[in-house]
């Protein structure tokens, strides 16, 4: 078994990295909102789910791919991928903003504590997942393959797959843009100011509602991108995908230390890799268990997450 593992180490690692980047992007939807509102954005998982379907619709219905179509190549391929990426980002981003308006905003104004928004978010998740279930007849939906998953090179003995490469490169570019946005632009700085100290930010005249909407938008955009990458990698989706990936991504956010972007990054990578390795040894059915056992161990030994601020300490 172990010899096998070494043989496959690099291909597993590439697969794990691309999964890790998907987690990172979804985790951003949790972590950025958490940073600003100190609240679990429970419905983010369904934002992801909708993103995957947006991608499938673009590939299947807009570009008319079927299971038997020929693969797209060259500029046409990039056009298709680009359109699908942007479409799922936009759909998810807008949905995320709407969810905030419908499910959270009123409750936030009323200062209702953390439970009421959580239940409200659970309600929204149910509405989204159930609508999708009804529309898809409770069945998983396959995405036609738009591109050939060719091997573009070798690393040690492992073949490097094109889709994994695209995911990793594109995700890094997106993250770089996000970092530039958060660190360099006025809006981004406002988000950071609110994350650090909401009251002070309010006193400085920052429009909190505006910042919250932008945060949900950005989180949704990133989560939507993850939806696209997911379909690219696994070529299917289902109404319950949000729940599965959402939990893992949330775990990733916590693993790294929720509330900060760096934490989502490391947490996502660590989780993507560990999960892939663990599935190799234990079989995929224990995947979720592994994830949670890791989470519990990390939280127990490092309650702040691997890279995060103190989460058990509080000030008096």
């Amino acid at each position: 078994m172990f010899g096998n593992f070494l043989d496959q180490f690099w291909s597993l690692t590439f697969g794990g990295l691309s999964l890790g980047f998907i987690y990172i992007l979804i985790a951003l939807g949790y972590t950025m909102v958490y940073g600003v509102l100190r609240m679990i954005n429970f419905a983010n998982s369904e934002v992801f789910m909708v993103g995957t379907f947006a991608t499938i619709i673009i590939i299947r219905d807009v570009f008319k791919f079927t299971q038997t179509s020929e693969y797209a190549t060259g500029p046409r391929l990039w056009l298709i991928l680009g359109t699908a990426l942007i479409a799922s980002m936009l759909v998810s981003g807008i949905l995320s903003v709407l969810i905030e308006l419908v499910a959270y905003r009123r409750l936030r104004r009323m200062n209702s504590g953390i439970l009421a928004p959580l239940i409200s978010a659970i309600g929204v998740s149910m509405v989204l997942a159930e609508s999708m279930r009804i529309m898809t007849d409770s069945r998983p939906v396959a995405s036609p393959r738009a591109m050939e998953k060719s091997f573009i090179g070798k690393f040690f003995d492992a073949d490097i797959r094109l889709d994994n490469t695209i995911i990793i490169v594109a995700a890094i570019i997106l993250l770089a843009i996000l970092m530039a946005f958060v660190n360099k632009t006025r809006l981004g700085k406002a988000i950071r100011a609110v994350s650090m100290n909401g009251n002070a930010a309010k006193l400085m005249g920052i429009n909190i509602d505006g910042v919250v909407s932008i945060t949900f938008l950005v989180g949704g955009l990133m989560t939507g991108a993850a939806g696209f990458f997911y379909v690219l990698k696994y070529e299917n989706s289902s109404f319950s995908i949000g729940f599965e990936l959402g939990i893992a991504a949330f775990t990733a956010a916590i693993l790294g230390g929720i509330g900060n972007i760096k934490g989502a990054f490391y947490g996502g990578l660590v989780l993507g890799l560990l999960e892939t390795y663990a599935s190799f040894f234990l079989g995929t059915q224990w995947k979720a268990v592994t994830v949670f056992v890791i989470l519990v161990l990390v939280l127990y030994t490092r309650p702040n997450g691997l890279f995060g601020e103190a989460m058990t300490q509080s000030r008096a």
Partner: protein
Amino acid sequence: MINLRDKGADIWERSNRIERTFIALGFIALAASLPFFGGTFLNTPIADYESVLVYPIAMFVLMAIGLNIVIGKSGLLDLGYVAFFAIGAYTMGLLGTRTSLNTWEILPIGIAMAMFSGVILGVPALKLRGDYLAIITLGFGEIVRIVALNLGTLGRSEGILNIPTPPSVFGVEYSFDSHRIYYWTLLILILFAIWMVRRLSVRRAGRAWESIRQDEDAAELMGVPTFKYKVWAFVLGASVGGAAGVFYASKTLFIAPDNFTLQISILILACVVFGGMGNIWGVILGAVILGYLPDRIRFLSDARLLVFGLVLVIMMNLRPDGLLPRKKREKPLPKQVQ
């Protein structure tokens, strides 16, 4: 709604011991006679009224009361409550089919197992801040289900079949379709849980939980052993969930991992919050409505969970403290303790 609650509390407070006993007995009698007033209009499309009264309604009420100790009283966000229900049910399933123990003998074992897992889960998890607790408990719930799904001894996805019904007590027979008997037994469990919660609420434990919920740091600094009381809340909540599980398995006679999904945790949580966290009557009302509603609106067939989700969103936005929120009114000024 608010007035109704306050009025009720007023009457209760003005009554003396004997009057209170009568009021309580009256309510118990009313609850116990529920199986008789169903009529057909309360039947749901999939099951007749009496069986719906047992599951989900009474079962949800019991679990919601248990979860309310954790969430409503102490403010600990537990998203994996179904785990304790599952542990109770599987204890019943395993011991009931493999040993000669009967339901009544297994009940304390199931409760103990649930409490024990409450400690195992609670001791590490309760050191963490609230949101972390939420996700850890959610994970725990999933782990229990996945373990059941993958372990041969627990029957994998087929679950456990042929679980025995409870043996008769005092000549009362439990047969598969004697819903009333099950309902009355559950009612006794519910009354016991209510008694426990009410009793604890007015004593040291209740104050400790309340102070933790409102300001944990202040509580700790005022000498409340917060960790110990959080673990207690967790374990007591687990015990109720475990009891519900044992009884559930002994009623349905067949359990499978699909009965213990995250959805159940969320539904019970919704009962607590929807009805009014911290207020036992609110919680009961919430459980009755949310237990009944999804079955009742089955005529919407496929869309019923969708509608249910909508109801949650709308309700939370209109009444974030639930239908019957916890007591906010004050006792009249003149009355003084001297």
